Protein backbone atom coordinates (compact mmCIF):
# COMPACT_ATOMS: atom_id res chain seq x y z
CA UNK A 1 0.00 0.00 0.00
CA UNK A 2 1.16 3.47 -0.77
CA UNK A 3 1.51 6.32 1.67
CA UNK A 4 -1.81 7.70 0.51
CA UNK A 5 -3.75 4.92 2.14
CA UNK A 6 -1.87 5.02 5.41
CA UNK A 7 -2.27 8.76 5.82
CA UNK A 8 -5.98 8.76 5.13
CA UNK A 9 -7.16 8.83 8.72
CA UNK A 10 -6.13 12.20 10.01
CA UNK A 11 -7.55 13.59 13.22
CA UNK A 12 -9.27 16.92 12.95
CA UNK A 13 -8.87 18.90 16.13
CA UNK A 14 -11.97 18.45 18.24
CA UNK A 15 -10.75 20.85 20.88
CA UNK A 16 -10.20 24.01 18.90
CA UNK A 17 -8.70 25.88 21.84
CA UNK A 18 -5.75 23.53 21.74
CA UNK A 19 -4.56 24.84 18.43
CA UNK A 20 -5.35 28.49 17.91
CA UNK A 21 -2.64 29.33 15.46
CA UNK A 22 0.73 30.89 14.99
CA UNK A 23 2.55 33.63 13.18
CA UNK A 24 5.68 33.05 11.15
CA UNK A 25 7.97 35.43 9.36
CA UNK A 26 8.45 34.88 5.62
CA UNK A 27 11.65 32.84 5.93
CA UNK A 28 10.28 30.48 8.53
CA UNK A 29 7.04 30.06 6.65
CA UNK A 30 8.92 29.25 3.44
CA UNK A 31 10.96 26.76 5.45
CA UNK A 32 7.80 25.02 6.60
CA UNK A 33 6.47 25.09 3.05
CA UNK A 34 9.69 23.49 1.76
CA UNK A 35 9.16 20.62 4.17
CA UNK A 36 5.55 20.27 3.05
CA UNK A 37 6.40 20.04 -0.64
CA UNK A 38 8.73 17.16 0.09
CA UNK A 39 5.61 15.16 0.93
CA UNK A 40 2.90 16.86 -1.10
CA UNK A 41 2.27 18.31 -4.52
CA UNK A 42 0.81 21.80 -3.94
CA UNK A 43 -1.72 23.36 -6.27
CA UNK A 44 -2.67 27.00 -5.69
CA UNK A 45 -3.65 30.20 -7.51
CA UNK A 46 -0.66 31.46 -9.49
CA UNK A 47 -0.14 34.48 -11.72
CA UNK A 48 0.66 33.68 -15.33
CA UNK A 49 1.97 36.81 -17.02
CA UNK A 50 0.27 38.07 -20.16
CA UNK A 51 -2.18 35.16 -20.44
CA UNK A 52 -5.23 37.10 -19.27
CA UNK A 53 -8.45 37.56 -21.16
CA UNK A 54 -7.54 41.02 -22.42
CA UNK A 55 -4.17 42.29 -23.68
CA UNK A 56 -1.59 43.13 -21.02
CA UNK A 57 -3.59 41.22 -18.43
CA UNK A 58 -2.32 38.33 -16.37
CA UNK A 59 -4.21 35.13 -15.84
CA UNK A 60 -4.68 33.90 -12.32
CA UNK A 61 -4.92 30.17 -12.56
CA UNK A 62 -4.53 27.03 -10.49
CA UNK A 63 -1.12 25.50 -11.01
CA UNK A 64 1.68 23.67 -9.17
CA UNK A 65 3.56 25.98 -6.83
CA UNK A 66 7.05 25.56 -5.38
CA UNK A 67 7.07 28.43 -2.92
CA UNK A 68 4.59 30.33 -0.77
CA UNK A 69 5.56 33.51 -2.58
CA UNK A 70 4.19 32.01 -5.84
CA UNK A 71 0.69 31.91 -4.39
CA UNK A 72 -1.76 34.65 -5.30
CA UNK A 73 -3.75 35.19 -2.12
CA UNK A 74 -5.90 38.12 -3.18
CA UNK A 75 -7.29 37.29 -6.62
CA UNK A 76 -9.87 34.87 -7.87
CA UNK A 77 -8.84 32.22 -10.41
CA UNK A 78 -10.41 32.12 -13.86
CA UNK A 79 -10.97 28.36 -13.73
CA UNK A 80 -11.66 26.28 -10.65
CA UNK A 81 -9.29 23.64 -9.30
CA UNK A 82 -11.59 20.73 -10.11
CA UNK A 83 -9.24 19.22 -12.69
CA UNK A 84 -7.03 18.08 -9.80
CA UNK A 85 -9.59 15.46 -8.75
CA UNK A 86 -11.60 15.36 -11.97
CA UNK A 87 -9.17 15.63 -14.90
CA UNK A 88 -10.40 17.18 -18.15
CA UNK A 89 -9.60 13.84 -19.74
CA UNK A 90 -8.92 10.65 -17.87
CA UNK A 91 -8.24 7.08 -18.95
CA UNK A 92 -10.66 4.62 -17.34
CA UNK A 93 -9.63 1.35 -18.96
CA UNK A 94 -6.83 -0.02 -21.06
CA UNK A 95 -7.84 -2.77 -23.48
CA UNK A 96 -5.19 -5.10 -24.77
CA UNK A 97 -6.03 -8.20 -26.85
CA UNK A 98 -9.34 -8.69 -25.11
CA UNK A 99 -7.96 -8.04 -21.60
CA UNK A 100 -9.27 -5.07 -19.64
CA UNK A 101 -7.29 -3.24 -17.02
CA UNK A 102 -8.17 -0.26 -14.82
CA UNK A 103 -5.95 2.68 -15.69
CA UNK A 104 -3.29 3.34 -13.07
CA UNK A 105 -2.47 6.78 -11.72
CA UNK A 106 0.36 8.27 -9.76
CA UNK A 107 -1.10 8.61 -6.27
CA UNK A 108 0.71 11.65 -4.99
CA UNK A 109 -0.76 13.45 -2.00
CA UNK A 110 -1.92 16.86 -3.13
CA UNK A 111 -2.71 20.05 -1.26
CA UNK A 112 -5.11 22.50 -2.90
CA UNK A 113 -5.47 26.08 -1.71
CA UNK A 114 -9.18 26.90 -1.92
CA UNK A 115 -11.62 29.62 -0.91
CA UNK A 116 -14.73 28.78 1.14
CA UNK A 117 -16.99 28.60 -1.93
CA UNK A 118 -14.65 26.18 -3.69
CA UNK A 119 -14.36 24.01 -0.58
CA UNK A 120 -18.14 23.81 -0.45
CA UNK A 121 -18.05 22.95 -4.16
CA UNK A 122 -15.98 19.86 -3.31
CA UNK A 123 -18.84 18.74 -1.10
CA UNK A 124 -21.06 18.86 -4.19
CA UNK A 125 -18.53 16.78 -6.15
CA UNK A 126 -18.43 14.26 -3.29
CA UNK A 127 -22.21 14.11 -3.35
CA UNK A 128 -22.38 13.39 -7.08
CA UNK A 129 -19.44 11.01 -7.36
CA UNK A 130 -19.62 9.20 -4.03
CA UNK A 131 -23.33 9.29 -3.13
CA UNK A 132 -25.73 9.84 -6.03
CA UNK A 133 -27.65 6.64 -6.74
CA UNK A 134 -25.72 4.84 -4.00
CA UNK A 135 -22.77 4.25 -6.35
CA UNK A 136 -19.18 5.30 -5.67
CA UNK A 137 -17.01 6.38 -8.55
CA UNK A 138 -13.62 4.74 -7.97
CA UNK A 139 -11.69 7.07 -10.30
CA UNK A 140 -12.90 10.10 -8.42
CA UNK A 141 -12.51 8.43 -5.04
CA UNK A 142 -8.85 7.56 -5.45
CA UNK A 143 -7.93 11.09 -6.50
CA UNK A 144 -10.13 12.73 -3.89
CA UNK A 145 -8.65 10.66 -1.10
CA UNK A 146 -5.22 12.02 -1.81
CA UNK A 147 -6.37 15.65 -1.60
CA UNK A 148 -5.84 17.88 1.43
CA UNK A 149 -7.49 21.27 1.60
CA UNK A 150 -5.80 24.53 2.65
CA UNK A 151 -8.13 27.48 3.15
CA UNK A 152 -7.64 30.84 1.45
CA UNK A 153 -9.44 33.87 2.84
CA UNK A 154 -11.35 36.33 0.68
CA UNK A 155 -10.11 39.88 1.34
CA UNK A 156 -13.34 41.30 -0.15
CA UNK A 157 -16.21 40.01 -2.24
CA UNK A 158 -15.11 39.80 -5.88
CA UNK A 159 -17.27 41.16 -8.70
CA UNK A 160 -20.29 38.91 -9.43
CA UNK A 161 -19.70 36.69 -6.39
CA UNK A 162 -22.71 35.70 -4.32
CA UNK A 163 -21.49 33.04 -1.89
CA UNK A 164 -23.27 34.58 1.11
CA UNK A 165 -26.58 34.35 -0.75
CA UNK A 166 -25.89 30.70 -1.50
CA UNK A 167 -24.80 29.97 2.09
CA UNK A 168 -21.39 28.79 0.89
CA UNK A 169 -19.36 31.66 2.36
CA UNK A 170 -18.11 29.67 5.38
CA UNK A 171 -16.42 26.37 6.03
CA UNK A 172 -14.43 24.51 8.62
CA UNK A 173 -13.57 21.72 6.23
CA UNK A 174 -9.85 22.43 5.81
CA UNK A 175 -6.55 21.15 7.16
CA UNK A 176 -4.64 24.41 7.34
CA UNK A 177 -5.56 28.06 6.90
CA UNK A 178 -2.86 30.46 5.73
CA UNK A 179 -3.19 34.26 5.61
CA UNK A 180 -0.50 36.41 4.06
CA UNK A 181 0.28 39.38 6.27
CA UNK A 182 2.62 42.33 5.89
CA UNK A 183 5.68 40.69 7.42
CA UNK A 184 4.88 37.05 7.24
CA UNK A 185 2.06 34.57 7.49
CA UNK A 186 -0.69 33.74 9.98
CA UNK A 187 -1.47 30.05 10.17
CA UNK A 188 -4.15 27.93 11.74
CA UNK A 189 -3.84 24.16 11.78
CA UNK A 190 -6.98 22.05 11.97
CA UNK A 191 -5.44 18.74 11.03
CA UNK A 192 -2.88 17.08 13.26
CA UNK A 193 -1.05 15.59 10.28
CA UNK A 194 0.30 19.08 9.53
CA UNK A 195 1.56 19.92 13.04
CA UNK A 196 4.98 18.51 12.35
CA UNK A 197 5.71 21.01 9.57
CA UNK A 198 5.17 24.01 11.86
CA UNK A 199 7.54 23.58 14.78
CA UNK A 200 8.51 27.26 14.90
CA UNK A 201 6.66 30.55 15.25
CA UNK A 202 4.81 32.55 17.86
CA UNK A 203 1.46 31.37 19.18
CA UNK A 204 -1.37 33.64 18.15
CA UNK A 205 -5.11 33.62 17.79
CA UNK A 206 -5.79 33.06 14.09
CA UNK A 207 -9.34 32.91 12.77
CA UNK A 208 -10.23 33.07 9.09
CA UNK A 209 -12.57 35.90 8.10
CA UNK A 210 -15.43 34.94 5.85
CA UNK A 211 -17.47 37.21 3.58
CA UNK A 212 -20.70 38.11 5.35
CA UNK A 213 -22.43 40.19 2.68
CA UNK A 214 -22.42 39.91 -1.10
CA UNK A 215 -22.06 43.05 -3.22
CA UNK A 216 -25.39 42.12 -4.76
CA UNK A 217 -27.43 39.94 -2.41
CA UNK A 218 -29.74 37.43 -4.08
CA UNK A 219 -32.85 35.60 -2.98
CA UNK A 220 -33.13 32.00 -4.10
CA UNK A 221 -36.73 30.88 -4.61
CA UNK A 222 -37.78 27.83 -2.55
CA UNK A 223 -39.62 26.30 -5.47
CA UNK A 224 -40.76 27.24 -8.94
CA UNK A 225 -43.95 26.92 -10.89
CA UNK A 226 -43.98 24.86 -14.11
CA UNK A 227 -45.05 27.97 -16.02
CA UNK A 228 -41.47 29.22 -15.61
CA UNK A 229 -40.46 26.69 -18.26
CA UNK A 230 -42.48 28.53 -20.87
CA UNK A 231 -41.57 32.02 -19.66
CA UNK A 232 -40.25 34.48 -22.23
CA UNK A 233 -37.19 35.16 -20.07
CA UNK A 234 -35.33 32.23 -21.69
CA UNK A 235 -35.62 33.68 -25.20
CA UNK A 236 -32.88 36.21 -24.55
CA UNK A 237 -30.45 33.36 -23.87
CA UNK A 238 -31.42 31.62 -27.11
CA UNK A 239 -30.37 34.79 -28.90
CA UNK A 240 -27.21 35.50 -26.94
CA UNK A 241 -25.58 32.24 -25.86
CA UNK A 242 -23.13 30.80 -28.40
CA UNK A 243 -23.05 27.37 -26.69
CA UNK A 244 -19.33 27.51 -26.01
CA UNK A 245 -19.66 25.68 -22.68
CA UNK A 246 -17.19 27.92 -20.84
CA UNK A 247 -19.70 28.43 -18.03
CA UNK A 248 -19.57 24.67 -17.40
CA UNK A 249 -15.82 24.21 -17.73
CA UNK A 250 -15.08 27.06 -15.33
CA UNK A 251 -17.70 25.98 -12.79
CA UNK A 252 -16.41 24.26 -9.63
CA UNK A 253 -19.64 22.23 -9.35
CA UNK A 254 -20.24 21.02 -12.92
CA UNK A 255 -19.56 17.28 -12.87
CA UNK A 256 -20.90 15.97 -16.21
CA UNK A 257 -18.70 13.84 -18.42
CA UNK A 258 -18.87 11.86 -21.61
CA UNK A 259 -17.08 8.62 -22.45
CA UNK A 260 -15.10 7.83 -25.57
CA UNK A 261 -13.16 4.81 -26.83
CA UNK A 262 -9.85 5.60 -28.46
CA UNK A 263 -7.95 3.15 -30.63
CA UNK A 264 -4.23 3.40 -30.17
CA UNK A 265 -2.83 3.94 -33.62
CA UNK A 266 -0.88 1.25 -35.47
CA UNK A 267 -2.22 -1.34 -33.09
CA UNK A 268 -5.79 -2.47 -33.52
CA UNK A 269 -5.39 -4.71 -30.47
CA UNK A 270 -5.06 -1.82 -28.07
CA UNK A 271 -7.58 0.78 -27.11
CA UNK A 272 -8.44 3.02 -24.20
CA UNK A 273 -11.70 4.20 -22.72
CA UNK A 274 -11.54 7.86 -21.77
CA UNK A 275 -13.87 10.08 -19.90
CA UNK A 276 -13.92 13.72 -20.81
CA UNK A 277 -15.70 16.76 -19.36
CA UNK A 278 -18.93 17.50 -21.12
CA UNK A 279 -21.22 20.49 -21.17
CA UNK A 280 -25.01 20.75 -21.10
CA UNK A 281 -24.80 24.07 -22.96
CA UNK A 282 -23.08 22.52 -25.97
CA UNK A 283 -24.83 20.82 -28.92
CA UNK A 284 -25.34 17.04 -28.81
CA UNK A 285 -25.29 16.71 -25.02
CA UNK A 286 -28.60 14.85 -25.23
CA UNK A 287 -28.55 13.63 -28.82
CA UNK A 288 -30.03 10.18 -29.47
CA UNK A 289 -29.19 7.92 -32.39
CA UNK A 290 -31.55 8.79 -35.23
CA UNK A 291 -31.07 12.53 -34.58
CA UNK A 292 -33.71 12.89 -31.90
CA UNK A 293 -32.58 15.73 -29.67
CA UNK A 294 -33.72 17.62 -26.58
CA UNK A 295 -33.16 21.28 -25.66
CA UNK A 296 -32.30 22.45 -29.15
CA UNK A 297 -32.81 26.08 -28.09
CA UNK A 298 -29.95 27.53 -26.08
CA UNK A 299 -32.44 29.23 -23.79
CA UNK A 300 -33.72 25.79 -22.81
CA UNK A 301 -30.14 24.69 -22.07
CA UNK A 302 -29.64 27.75 -19.86
CA UNK A 303 -32.88 26.94 -18.03
CA UNK A 304 -31.74 23.31 -17.61
CA UNK A 305 -28.41 24.40 -16.11
CA UNK A 306 -29.63 27.19 -13.88
CA UNK A 307 -32.60 25.30 -12.43
CA UNK A 308 -30.36 22.32 -11.66
CA UNK A 309 -27.98 24.61 -9.80
CA UNK A 310 -30.57 26.38 -7.66
CA UNK A 311 -33.66 24.10 -7.47
CA UNK A 312 -33.42 20.53 -8.80
CA UNK A 313 -30.22 19.38 -7.07
CA UNK A 314 -31.52 20.78 -3.76
CA UNK A 315 -34.71 18.71 -4.06
CA UNK A 316 -32.65 15.54 -3.68
CA UNK A 317 -29.74 16.61 -1.51
CA UNK A 318 -31.02 19.54 0.54
CA UNK A 319 -28.48 22.14 -0.56
CA UNK A 320 -27.84 24.10 -3.73
CA UNK A 321 -25.47 23.07 -6.49
CA UNK A 322 -24.22 26.60 -7.15
CA UNK A 323 -21.73 28.03 -4.67
CA UNK A 324 -21.90 31.58 -6.03
CA UNK A 325 -18.26 31.81 -7.09
CA UNK A 326 -19.20 34.05 -10.02
CA UNK A 327 -16.83 32.36 -12.46
CA UNK A 328 -19.49 31.60 -15.08
CA UNK A 329 -20.26 35.33 -15.24
CA UNK A 330 -16.60 36.19 -15.61
CA UNK A 331 -15.84 33.72 -18.40
CA UNK A 332 -18.93 34.14 -20.58
CA UNK A 333 -18.01 35.81 -23.88
CA UNK A 334 -21.61 36.95 -24.22
CA UNK A 335 -21.86 38.56 -20.79
CA UNK A 336 -24.54 36.14 -19.66
CA UNK A 337 -24.80 36.26 -15.89
CA UNK A 338 -25.84 33.59 -13.42
CA UNK A 339 -26.64 36.13 -10.71
CA UNK A 340 -28.81 38.16 -13.08
CA UNK A 341 -30.62 35.05 -14.18
CA UNK A 342 -31.35 34.02 -10.59
CA UNK A 343 -32.63 37.52 -9.89
CA UNK A 344 -35.03 37.32 -12.84
CA UNK A 345 -36.30 33.91 -11.76
CA UNK A 346 -36.93 35.21 -8.28
CA UNK A 347 -38.81 38.25 -9.59
CA UNK A 348 -41.01 35.99 -11.73
CA UNK A 349 -41.70 33.75 -8.73
CA UNK A 350 -42.70 36.72 -6.57
CA UNK A 351 -44.94 38.13 -9.31
CA UNK A 352 -46.57 34.68 -9.71
CA UNK A 353 -47.26 34.42 -6.02
CA UNK A 354 -48.75 37.91 -5.81
CA UNK A 355 -50.97 37.17 -8.79
CA UNK A 356 -52.30 34.06 -7.07
CA UNK A 357 -53.10 35.86 -3.81
Amino acid sequence: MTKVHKLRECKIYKDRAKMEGLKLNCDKAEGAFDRIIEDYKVVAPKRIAGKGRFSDMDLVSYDMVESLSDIVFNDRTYFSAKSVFFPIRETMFNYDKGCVEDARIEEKLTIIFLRACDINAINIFDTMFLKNGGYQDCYYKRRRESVKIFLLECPRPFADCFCASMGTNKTDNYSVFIRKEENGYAIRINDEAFMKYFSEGAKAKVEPHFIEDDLGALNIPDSIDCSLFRNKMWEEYSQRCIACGRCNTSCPTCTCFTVQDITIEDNMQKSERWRIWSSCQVKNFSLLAGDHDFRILKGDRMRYKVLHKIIDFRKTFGFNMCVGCGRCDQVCPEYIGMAKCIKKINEICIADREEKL
Partner: protein
Amino acid sequence: MMNNIYAGKAVKILGITKHTNMERSFTLDAHIHGMPGQFVMVSLSHAGEIPISISGFSSTSIEITVRNVGKVTSKLFQLKVGDKLHLRGPYGESFPLEAFDGQHLLIIAGGTGLAAVKPLLECCLDDDEYKPKKLNLLVGFKSPKHLLFKKELDHWQKKGEVIVTVDTTEGETEAWAGGIGFVVDFVKHVGGIGPETKVVLVGPPLMITNIVRELVHNNVREENIWTSFERHMKCGVGKCGHCRIRDKYVCLDGPVFNHVEAKSLID
Protein backbone atom coordinates in the same frame (compact mmCIF):
# COMPACT_ATOMS: atom_id res chain seq x y z
CA MET B 1 -8.40 -4.12 -8.88
CA MET B 2 -10.51 -1.29 -7.49
CA ASN B 3 -14.17 -1.79 -6.81
CA ASN B 4 -15.06 -0.35 -10.19
CA ILE B 5 -18.71 0.41 -10.96
CA TYR B 6 -17.82 0.88 -14.64
CA ALA B 7 -16.20 -2.52 -15.08
CA GLY B 8 -18.34 -4.99 -16.99
CA LYS B 9 -18.02 -8.76 -17.01
CA ALA B 10 -16.93 -10.52 -20.18
CA VAL B 11 -19.80 -12.66 -21.44
CA LYS B 12 -20.07 -14.99 -24.42
CA ILE B 13 -22.67 -14.71 -27.16
CA LEU B 14 -24.59 -18.00 -27.14
CA GLY B 15 -26.97 -17.28 -29.99
CA ILE B 16 -28.03 -14.63 -32.49
CA THR B 17 -31.51 -14.23 -33.98
CA LYS B 18 -31.92 -12.02 -37.04
CA HIS B 19 -35.35 -10.39 -36.99
CA THR B 20 -34.87 -7.82 -39.75
CA ASN B 21 -31.90 -6.24 -41.50
CA MET B 22 -31.75 -3.73 -38.68
CA GLU B 23 -32.66 -5.76 -35.61
CA ARG B 24 -31.07 -8.74 -33.94
CA SER B 25 -31.40 -10.52 -30.62
CA PHE B 26 -28.33 -11.79 -28.81
CA THR B 27 -28.50 -14.49 -26.17
CA LEU B 28 -25.71 -13.94 -23.67
CA ASP B 29 -24.09 -16.27 -21.21
CA ALA B 30 -24.88 -13.99 -18.29
CA HIS B 31 -26.51 -14.72 -14.97
CA ILE B 32 -28.33 -11.53 -14.24
CA HIS B 33 -31.28 -11.40 -11.92
CA GLY B 34 -33.10 -8.42 -13.29
CA MET B 35 -36.73 -7.40 -13.43
CA PRO B 36 -38.82 -6.56 -16.52
CA GLY B 37 -38.06 -2.99 -17.64
CA GLN B 38 -34.47 -2.91 -16.41
CA PHE B 39 -31.49 -2.42 -18.69
CA VAL B 40 -27.82 -3.39 -18.94
CA MET B 41 -24.77 -1.47 -20.14
CA VAL B 42 -23.21 -3.28 -23.11
CA SER B 43 -19.61 -2.50 -23.84
CA LEU B 44 -17.31 -3.17 -26.79
CA SER B 45 -13.70 -2.04 -26.74
CA HIS B 46 -12.77 0.36 -29.60
CA ALA B 47 -16.44 1.34 -29.84
CA GLY B 48 -18.01 2.28 -26.50
CA GLU B 49 -20.77 1.41 -24.12
CA ILE B 50 -24.56 1.70 -24.51
CA PRO B 51 -27.73 1.05 -22.51
CA ILE B 52 -29.88 -1.82 -23.81
CA SER B 53 -33.07 -3.20 -22.27
CA ILE B 54 -33.11 -6.81 -21.23
CA SER B 55 -35.53 -8.49 -23.66
CA GLY B 56 -35.54 -11.94 -22.10
CA PHE B 57 -34.39 -13.85 -19.03
CA SER B 58 -33.66 -17.49 -18.40
CA SER B 59 -31.99 -19.04 -15.41
CA THR B 60 -28.68 -19.25 -17.25
CA SER B 61 -28.76 -16.47 -19.83
CA ILE B 62 -30.25 -13.13 -20.81
CA GLU B 63 -31.34 -11.84 -24.18
CA ILE B 64 -30.91 -8.34 -25.59
CA THR B 65 -32.46 -7.05 -28.79
CA VAL B 66 -30.60 -4.36 -30.65
CA ARG B 67 -31.35 -1.99 -33.51
CA ASN B 68 -28.33 -1.14 -35.63
CA VAL B 69 -28.20 2.65 -35.56
CA GLY B 70 -24.66 3.85 -34.89
CA LYS B 71 -21.14 3.30 -33.71
CA VAL B 72 -21.53 0.71 -30.96
CA THR B 73 -24.57 -1.07 -32.34
CA SER B 74 -22.97 -1.57 -35.78
CA LYS B 75 -19.86 -3.03 -34.12
CA LEU B 76 -22.14 -5.35 -32.15
CA PHE B 77 -23.67 -6.57 -35.43
CA GLN B 78 -20.22 -7.74 -36.58
CA LEU B 79 -19.95 -10.18 -33.68
CA LYS B 80 -20.56 -13.91 -34.08
CA VAL B 81 -21.71 -16.67 -31.76
CA GLY B 82 -18.84 -17.41 -29.36
CA ASP B 83 -17.50 -13.83 -29.39
CA LYS B 84 -17.45 -11.88 -26.16
CA LEU B 85 -18.71 -8.52 -25.05
CA HIS B 86 -18.73 -6.77 -21.68
CA LEU B 87 -21.84 -6.38 -19.63
CA ARG B 88 -22.82 -4.65 -16.38
CA GLY B 89 -26.15 -4.22 -14.66
CA PRO B 90 -29.06 -4.66 -14.26
CA TYR B 91 -29.88 -0.99 -13.78
CA GLY B 92 -32.94 1.18 -13.29
CA GLU B 93 -36.44 0.79 -11.98
CA SER B 94 -38.62 -2.00 -13.36
CA PHE B 95 -42.32 -2.09 -14.24
CA PRO B 96 -44.44 -2.27 -11.06
CA LEU B 97 -45.51 -5.92 -11.43
CA GLU B 98 -47.48 -5.98 -8.19
CA ALA B 99 -49.70 -3.14 -9.45
CA PHE B 100 -50.79 -5.35 -12.38
CA ASP B 101 -51.70 -8.42 -10.30
CA GLY B 102 -55.39 -9.24 -10.76
CA GLN B 103 -55.92 -6.18 -12.99
CA HIS B 104 -56.67 -5.54 -16.65
CA LEU B 105 -53.27 -4.85 -18.22
CA LEU B 106 -52.78 -3.30 -21.65
CA ILE B 107 -49.25 -3.29 -23.07
CA ILE B 108 -48.64 -1.01 -26.03
CA ALA B 109 -45.32 -1.08 -27.90
CA GLY B 110 -43.95 0.46 -31.06
CA GLY B 111 -41.15 -1.26 -33.04
CA THR B 112 -38.04 -2.08 -31.00
CA GLY B 113 -40.03 -1.00 -27.92
CA LEU B 114 -41.44 -4.52 -27.96
CA ALA B 115 -38.05 -5.75 -26.73
CA ALA B 116 -38.36 -3.69 -23.55
CA VAL B 117 -41.81 -5.07 -22.66
CA LYS B 118 -41.18 -8.67 -23.72
CA PRO B 119 -40.00 -9.82 -20.26
CA LEU B 120 -43.09 -8.19 -18.76
CA LEU B 121 -45.35 -10.09 -21.16
CA GLU B 122 -43.56 -13.34 -20.46
CA CYS B 123 -43.78 -12.75 -16.77
CA CYS B 124 -47.52 -12.07 -16.93
CA LEU B 125 -48.27 -14.99 -19.23
CA ASP B 126 -45.94 -17.71 -18.00
CA ASP B 127 -45.30 -16.82 -14.38
CA ASP B 128 -47.78 -17.58 -11.66
CA GLU B 129 -46.77 -14.95 -9.17
CA TYR B 130 -48.21 -11.89 -10.90
CA LYS B 131 -51.29 -12.59 -12.97
CA PRO B 132 -53.31 -9.82 -14.58
CA LYS B 133 -56.94 -10.91 -14.89
CA LYS B 134 -56.93 -9.83 -18.52
CA LEU B 135 -53.97 -9.05 -20.77
CA ASN B 136 -53.99 -7.14 -24.03
CA LEU B 137 -51.00 -6.48 -26.26
CA LEU B 138 -51.14 -3.83 -28.94
CA VAL B 139 -47.99 -3.61 -31.01
CA GLY B 140 -47.21 -1.60 -34.12
CA PHE B 141 -44.48 -1.88 -36.74
CA LYS B 142 -43.63 0.16 -39.83
CA SER B 143 -44.51 -2.66 -42.24
CA PRO B 144 -44.76 -6.47 -42.19
CA LYS B 145 -41.05 -6.59 -43.06
CA HIS B 146 -40.28 -4.84 -39.76
CA LEU B 147 -41.93 -7.42 -37.49
CA LEU B 148 -39.90 -8.61 -34.50
CA PHE B 149 -40.42 -11.79 -32.47
CA LYS B 150 -42.82 -13.40 -34.97
CA LYS B 151 -42.65 -16.76 -33.20
CA GLU B 152 -43.29 -15.21 -29.81
CA LEU B 153 -46.16 -13.13 -31.17
CA ASP B 154 -47.84 -16.35 -32.37
CA HIS B 155 -47.31 -17.90 -28.96
CA TRP B 156 -48.72 -14.85 -27.14
CA GLN B 157 -51.69 -14.75 -29.49
CA LYS B 158 -52.69 -18.17 -28.16
CA LYS B 159 -52.58 -16.99 -24.55
CA GLY B 160 -53.86 -13.43 -24.61
CA GLU B 161 -55.51 -10.86 -26.80
CA VAL B 162 -53.00 -9.48 -29.28
CA ILE B 163 -53.39 -6.85 -31.96
CA VAL B 164 -50.48 -6.41 -34.37
CA THR B 165 -50.61 -3.42 -36.67
CA VAL B 166 -48.39 -2.00 -39.40
CA ASP B 167 -48.27 1.58 -40.62
CA THR B 168 -48.36 0.39 -44.22
CA THR B 169 -48.30 -2.73 -46.42
CA GLU B 170 -47.08 -0.87 -49.47
CA GLY B 171 -44.65 -2.91 -51.52
CA GLU B 172 -45.51 -6.16 -49.73
CA THR B 173 -46.21 -9.26 -51.77
CA GLU B 174 -47.62 -11.47 -49.02
CA ALA B 175 -51.06 -10.89 -47.59
CA TRP B 176 -51.21 -9.14 -44.19
CA ALA B 177 -53.77 -10.39 -41.70
CA GLY B 178 -53.19 -7.75 -38.98
CA GLY B 179 -54.28 -4.15 -38.73
CA ILE B 180 -53.09 -1.34 -40.99
CA GLY B 181 -52.64 2.19 -39.63
CA PHE B 182 -51.04 3.94 -36.66
CA VAL B 183 -51.13 2.19 -33.29
CA VAL B 184 -53.04 5.07 -31.74
CA ASP B 185 -56.01 4.35 -34.01
CA PHE B 186 -56.28 0.83 -32.62
CA VAL B 187 -56.58 1.77 -28.96
CA LYS B 188 -60.37 1.92 -29.34
CA HIS B 189 -60.38 -1.68 -30.66
CA VAL B 190 -59.02 -2.97 -27.36
CA GLY B 191 -61.91 -4.39 -25.40
CA GLY B 192 -62.73 -3.39 -21.84
CA ILE B 193 -60.63 -0.23 -21.49
CA GLY B 194 -61.70 1.75 -18.45
CA PRO B 195 -60.44 4.03 -15.68
CA GLU B 196 -58.80 1.11 -13.86
CA THR B 197 -57.04 -0.40 -16.88
CA LYS B 198 -53.29 -0.43 -16.26
CA VAL B 199 -51.31 0.59 -19.33
CA VAL B 200 -47.64 0.12 -20.15
CA LEU B 201 -46.52 2.21 -23.09
CA VAL B 202 -43.13 1.97 -24.83
CA GLY B 203 -42.18 3.61 -28.11
CA PRO B 204 -40.97 6.80 -29.77
CA PRO B 205 -41.83 10.08 -27.94
CA LEU B 206 -44.42 11.24 -30.47
CA MET B 207 -46.25 7.92 -30.33
CA ILE B 208 -46.32 8.13 -26.54
CA THR B 209 -47.78 11.64 -26.53
CA ASN B 210 -50.51 10.68 -28.99
CA ILE B 211 -51.43 7.45 -27.27
CA VAL B 212 -51.57 8.99 -23.79
CA ARG B 213 -54.05 11.53 -25.17
CA GLU B 214 -56.14 8.74 -26.68
CA LEU B 215 -56.05 6.70 -23.46
CA VAL B 216 -57.15 9.66 -21.35
CA HIS B 217 -59.91 10.22 -23.91
CA ASN B 218 -60.94 6.59 -23.20
CA ASN B 219 -61.16 7.44 -19.47
CA VAL B 220 -57.93 5.71 -18.41
CA ARG B 221 -56.62 7.48 -15.31
CA GLU B 222 -53.17 9.05 -15.71
CA GLU B 223 -51.80 7.30 -12.64
CA ASN B 224 -52.56 3.98 -14.36
CA ILE B 225 -50.20 4.68 -17.24
CA TRP B 226 -46.46 3.82 -17.19
CA THR B 227 -43.93 4.70 -19.86
CA SER B 228 -40.27 3.92 -20.41
CA PHE B 229 -37.92 6.83 -21.16
CA GLU B 230 -34.95 6.85 -23.50
CA ARG B 231 -32.26 9.46 -22.95
CA HIS B 232 -28.60 9.81 -23.91
CA MET B 233 -26.64 7.75 -21.38
CA LYS B 234 -22.96 7.41 -20.70
CA CYS B 235 -22.76 5.66 -17.34
CA GLY B 236 -26.02 4.09 -16.18
CA VAL B 237 -25.19 4.84 -12.54
CA GLY B 238 -26.05 8.51 -11.94
CA LYS B 239 -22.60 9.98 -12.57
CA CYS B 240 -22.27 11.29 -16.14
CA GLY B 241 -25.28 13.59 -15.89
CA HIS B 242 -26.51 13.08 -19.45
CA CYS B 243 -29.82 11.38 -18.66
CA ARG B 244 -30.95 13.89 -16.03
CA ILE B 245 -34.34 15.58 -16.27
CA ARG B 246 -34.98 18.01 -13.38
CA ASP B 247 -34.18 16.11 -10.16
CA LYS B 248 -34.50 12.66 -11.78
CA TYR B 249 -31.91 10.48 -13.41
CA VAL B 250 -33.44 8.23 -16.07
CA CYS B 251 -30.78 5.61 -15.35
CA LEU B 252 -31.55 5.54 -11.59
CA ASP B 253 -35.15 6.70 -11.11
CA GLY B 254 -36.32 5.41 -14.53
CA PRO B 255 -36.35 4.29 -17.25
CA VAL B 256 -39.89 3.37 -16.16
CA PHE B 257 -41.93 6.33 -14.92
CA ASN B 258 -45.53 6.61 -13.94
CA HIS B 259 -47.22 9.09 -16.26
CA VAL B 260 -48.13 11.48 -13.44
CA GLU B 261 -44.44 11.90 -12.73
CA ALA B 262 -43.42 11.67 -16.39
CA LYS B 263 -45.65 14.65 -17.15
CA SER B 264 -43.68 16.86 -14.75
CA LEU B 265 -40.33 15.88 -16.25
CA ILE B 266 -39.73 18.66 -18.73
CA ASP B 267 -36.38 18.17 -20.45
